[in-house]
């Protein structure tokens, strides 16, 4: 796999949000406005890049048995750094993202990439993978935020749009709208994806944490 393919798979083919369906919590919660979505995407990308590079560099040092706690500590450290940077230089974004900023720690995309990619690949490849996945996450988040802000609030980056601002569907910016737009986007991806849509479900198949949790969430039949 060359570098370009490695980068672009995160954007479309293995988009973390729309195809792998990871990191749903921040996607739904922070996509109410485009600037929030970009801020969240950027923060998660920085954490992902740092954690992927460090985990990949340490992949021969970290004992296999305690790798998950090690990853969580590393990720939590980077999240704390990002949190402090955002607080210092973008206090408005910090207020808008609120609790979802520290919750990047438990974002499945980051632990997932560490487990699926960074602990098996070289530092440079892991960095490229992190940038691709981060860009894919930001892209999907912005797309959702674009729909929710333009139609739900009638604004674009906070600027009112002539006709839409008088006829906005405000439910789209509220909680139900988040679920609804996300559902429609995934349905659209299913419809237009070139390959036949595989039986998509929210199960352990696509979940990177499946090994960690012993497929606990998938009901008894899957665990056996």
């Amino acid at each position: 796999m060359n570098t370009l393919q490695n980068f672009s798979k995160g954007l479309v083919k293995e988009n973390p949000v729309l195809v792998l369906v990871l990191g749903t919590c921040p996607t739904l919660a922070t996509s109410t406005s485009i600037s929030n979505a970009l801020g969240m995407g950027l923060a998660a990308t920085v954490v992902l890049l740092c954690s992927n590079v460090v985990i990949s560099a340490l992949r021969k040092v970290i004992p296999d048995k305690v790798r998950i706690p090690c990853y969580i500590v590393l990720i939590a450290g980077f999240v704390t750094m990002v949190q402090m940077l955002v607080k210092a230089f973008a206090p408005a974004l910090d207020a808008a993202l609120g609790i979802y900023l520290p919750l990047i720690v438990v974002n499945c995309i980051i632990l997932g990439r560490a487990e699926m990619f960074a602990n098996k690949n070289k530092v440079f490849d892991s960095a490229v993978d992190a940038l691709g996945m981060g860009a894919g996450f930001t892209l999907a988040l912005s797309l959702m935020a674009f729909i929710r802000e333009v139609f739900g609030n009638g604004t674009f980056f906070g600027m009112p749009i002539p006709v839409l601002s008088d006829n906005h569907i405000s439910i789209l910016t509220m909680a139900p709208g988040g679920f609804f737009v996300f559902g429609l986007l995934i349905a659209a991806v299913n419809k237009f994806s070139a390959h036949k849509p595989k039986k998509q479900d929210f199960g352990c198949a696509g979940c990177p944490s499946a090994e960690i949790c012993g497929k606990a969430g998938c009901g008894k039949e899957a665990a056996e």
Partner: protein
Amino acid sequence: MTKLIIILLSAVFINNYVLSRFLGICPFLGVSKKLDSATGMSLAVIFVMLMASAATYPIQVYLLAPNGLGYLQTIVFILVIAALVQLVEIVLKRYIPSLHKSLGVYLPLITTNCAVLGVTILNIDEGYTFLEAMVNSLGSGLGFFLAMVMFSGVRSAIEAADVPKSFRGLPITLVAAAITSLSFLGFGGVIENLFA
């Protein structure tokens, strides 16, 4: 007392963790297929939420905050929760095997659950006292339970429905979640005015 009731009810209905704060979406979508697994998972979440809040609140208030270590909150909390979940699992396995049998499989999944980390951080952010923090955790857990049980009912109805091809699986589940969430929107403003 009134404040405690308001905290409890608003955590269950208005600021429902799943349906209005979007925390714990993964188990909400993943484990809600069957009623028994939905119940087991939510009971484990209530249990861990209470334990985690009881453990992290004193750490923040008596250890981190007075020593100017507030910035370590995220790292310390996630480690405490992870260690706590392991500990609870070991203790349950040894002393209450029947409870371990029904909740045990869900415990490891909860370590990386954003609802648990979320409730511990929110307890601090909101400036609750210890009692209020515990009530808030209980309410959040009960809200999670309510959403899970309700949604597993909705999902069993979807199973029988004829869904357009592109919407099969996850998309229709999300649209159903949107409608369930819409029903909770109706609680907004009710609880505050109940005691006014």
